[in-house]
């Protein structure tokens, strides 16, 4: 009897989302610590120093829990998706290089955190922080390179389907990956992967900064502490700019890649639920700049390889819709805070009048939109390629392009036998562990 993948997929998704929430928060908080420290070094304003120090400690707490949690995700991979490990040899370069990133983080981050005010040259301390942050971003860069390969098979990577040849390894491993030469492994970082990687990294900063902004707006409304406004001024307008770059530039390039590498995923994301070729004016305009291009509809491919239909909602409503809301709110409130009454002079006095309302809405809607857009993006990306990994498309002379990849069902551990209650318990724990970091941060902040 085939194994029901759903509970195990939900378990893995829960673990990965929980780990991603920690990784994302780390990238955002360490970046913010550096921005604040830079501001301190330029202005010598102690408020920036205190906040920079606080965010460096917060990032260290998040890193500690996140690093240990990464072990959970990793063991989960070996235990549940064991047959992915056989393929890891082919995509191991980013994992290998990520280890150095790990070392940067684990060694340099504590130095950065414990040497506040102890290194006389502030710029040297800032430089140590940059190296610690580099570790985090380099780590994300490499993991996202692997995730990119799951959605878009890198050039030169070939799938060997052993079962098609009546073969296996010990009746368990049925798929392998090969490169025609070892140096082709460097294609893990091909141009398509770069777009995927920077889209992911930017998403991490946007999500975490939107969450921090929400907390700061909430507090600022209540105590009108000018230090909070200083921090918000550093975050809101950049948040709006980053959201615009994410949607209009990187998002566009990402869409073009989906169009060429996985047209079935594109059909699911854009909600093109028809069979055969049909014009979709909006997608046509975004992709080609014309209104009359035809696209293969979702039902043009067999049901066995079609992704779930909820990805349309995850993409259009959660990611795009809430991403736009986030960008608009961050821009409006950011302008309000940055320019205040000066807005009247340039004809935007109405925006200043909206400030109280904007604050009330933004304290909840900015973090909510950021988180929902982030989750929507992750869901759309990873579920949009389901039920395959290492996806690629091959044009055919008639009919839609052929979508190829390794079925997710082939990488499950066939020996695994876990009752649903056990999976449910693990899901609860997996989702609860990030709260250890939240608790740690709460203890630290409340002690200050």
């Amino acid at each position, binding site marked *: 009897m085939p194994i029901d993948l759903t509970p195990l997929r939900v378990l893995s998704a829960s673990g990965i989302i929980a780990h991603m929430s920690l990784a994302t928060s780390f990238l955002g908080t360490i970046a913010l610590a550096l921005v604040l420290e830079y501001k301190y070094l330029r202005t010598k304003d102690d408020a920036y120093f205190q906040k920079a120090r606080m965010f460096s400690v917060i990032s260290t707490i998040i890193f500690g829990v996140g690093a240990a949690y990464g072990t959970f995700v990793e063991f989960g991979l*070996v235990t549940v998706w064991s047959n992915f490990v056989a393929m890891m040899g082919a995509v191991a370069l980013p994992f290998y290089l990520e280890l150095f990133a790990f070392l940067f983080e684990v060694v340099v981050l504590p130095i950065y955190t414990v040497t506040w005010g102890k290194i006389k040259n502030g710029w040297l301390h800032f430089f140590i922080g940059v190296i610690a942050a580099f570790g985090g971003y380099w780590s994300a860069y490499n993991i996202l390179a692997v995730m990119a390969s799951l959605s878009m098979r890198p050039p030169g990577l070939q799938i060997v389907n052993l079962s098609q040849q009546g073969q296996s390894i010990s009746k368990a491993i049925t798929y392998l990956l090969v490169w025609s030469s070892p140096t082709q492994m460097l294609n893990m970082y091909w141009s398509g992967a770069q777009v995927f990687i920077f889209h992911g990294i930017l998403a991490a900063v946007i999500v975490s900064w939107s969450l921090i902004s929400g907390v700061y707006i909430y507090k600022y409304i209540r105590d009108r502490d000018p230090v909070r406004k200083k921090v918000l001024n550093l975050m809101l307008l950049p948040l709006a700019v980053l959201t615009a770059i994410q949607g209009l530039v990187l998002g566009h390039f990402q869409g073009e890649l989906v169009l060429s590498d996985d047209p079935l995923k594109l059909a699911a994301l854009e909600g093109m639920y028809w069979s055969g070729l049909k014009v979709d004016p909006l997608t046509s305009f975004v992709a080609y700049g014309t209104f009359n291009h035809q696209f293969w509809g979702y039902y043009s491919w067999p049901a066995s390889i079609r992704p779930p239909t909820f990805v349309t909602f995850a993409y259009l409503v959660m990611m795009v819709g809430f991403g736009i809301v986030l960008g608009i709110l961050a821009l409006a409130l950011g302008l309000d805070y940055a320019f205040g009454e000066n807005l009247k002079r340039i004809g935007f006095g109405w925006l200043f009048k909206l400030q109280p309302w904007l604050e009330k809405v933004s304290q909840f809607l900015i973090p909510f939109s950021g988180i929902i857009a982030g989750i929507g993006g992750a869901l759309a990306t990873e579920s949009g390629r389901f039920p395959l990994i290492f996806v690629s498309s091959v044009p055919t002379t008639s009919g839609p392009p052929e979508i190829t990849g390794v079925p997710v069902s082939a990488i499950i551990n066939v020996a695994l036998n876990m009752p649903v209650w056990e999976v449910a318990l693990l899901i609860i724990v997996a989702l609860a562990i990030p709260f250890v970091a939240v608790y740690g941060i709460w203890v630290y902040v409340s002690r200050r």
Partner: protein
Amino acid sequence: MVASTSVVAGLLSWAFDVHLPLVYTVLGILWITPFIEYIGGKRMDSRYSDLEKVMLNYLIAVYAIGGVFGTIVTVFLAGLMPVFTNLAGIILWPVWATAIVAGVIITIPVIGMYYRTYNRWTYKNHAILGLLLAVSASLIPLMFRLVFAYTAFPAGTSITPDPSSIIGFDLSVNVFKAFMNPLYLPLYASTMSAALAFTGIMMIFGFSVRYKGLPHQDLGISVGKRIALVFGTLYGIFTSIYLYEVYENSATMAWSIFGSPPSYLPSALQAVFKPTYLLNEAFYVTISMALLLFVVLVVFYLKNNRTLGIILGPVSIAVLDLAETIDLLAHAPYAVVPPVSVAENLINTYGVQFALTVAKTLQVSTLSSTLDFLVQLINKLPPLLYMSLILFAFFNVLLIIVIYLALAWREER
């Protein structure tokens, strides 16, 4: 050309050599602190609570770093020997699953809780929490040492020819029989006693380095030397039993460690079981260093000399790392050393060619180079490896500085 076996062995040894001393102290502290707390509470002696606080600070600083190096070990295993790790994940999944539950799901939040509830709960309740945590953390080596024992002697394994398998056979494991591995319990007992002895020595070392004549430092040295002596002796006993079982059951390892083929190995099979590295000299150096360590420890026990206390630290790390490295490298050329009896059975039942196919498949070079492109890439671009080695050395030095800074910083607060 860099030999794939050397790349795999070198990288894995490095990760283990950093990981083990860190997690040994974590394990040791988790077992020692509840007793210190209980005795201190019972006697109402503040020296014990001061000592416990210092040890808990170290625990919090080092646990995550040790965990990170555990992750590095797994990434190396999966990245350098993917098929081996894949099959290990399938056939020994209960072992990995238990380690996840004990190591991550229980231990991470409870270590935080244990640290935070210090001085907030009654000493009895807090000590009970510490003991439960120690039991949970001890499940991690209880599981992973099975994998080590398995690679030295794959108990409970069945091998059947399968022409459809690209390695020529199918592998299955009876997990219950795997736990009956004769190497397993001595190895686990040796690990636990090593963890406690090593922690005891680190207590002596740490307090000797930063000695300021404080009462809790004197107490730490006094407790540390007793623990080190008792568990160091037990470590010697259990390791001797383990080595005996290795000699009896793992021909390649025995040959590598003791320098000559074991007496039961038929001469016809010597070519199959010949080790890649002859480590007998390193083994005798390690034994000599361990004996020297023991003597220094005994002298320290009697004289309490600060210089001797400082010497104990690096010597114990060297003994621990040498022992683990020898244990790891002695497997080569095999990732999983085939038992002699199984080899003979395979020859008798399926013929010499099949037995040789199985033996070849279990070798590190087959498991790494034929299907692993990372090792091939390193062979093509050796600077990748050399750069890695330089960076690893650099980070090891930084790591020591970080641990020192974290402790010094916390002590000042």
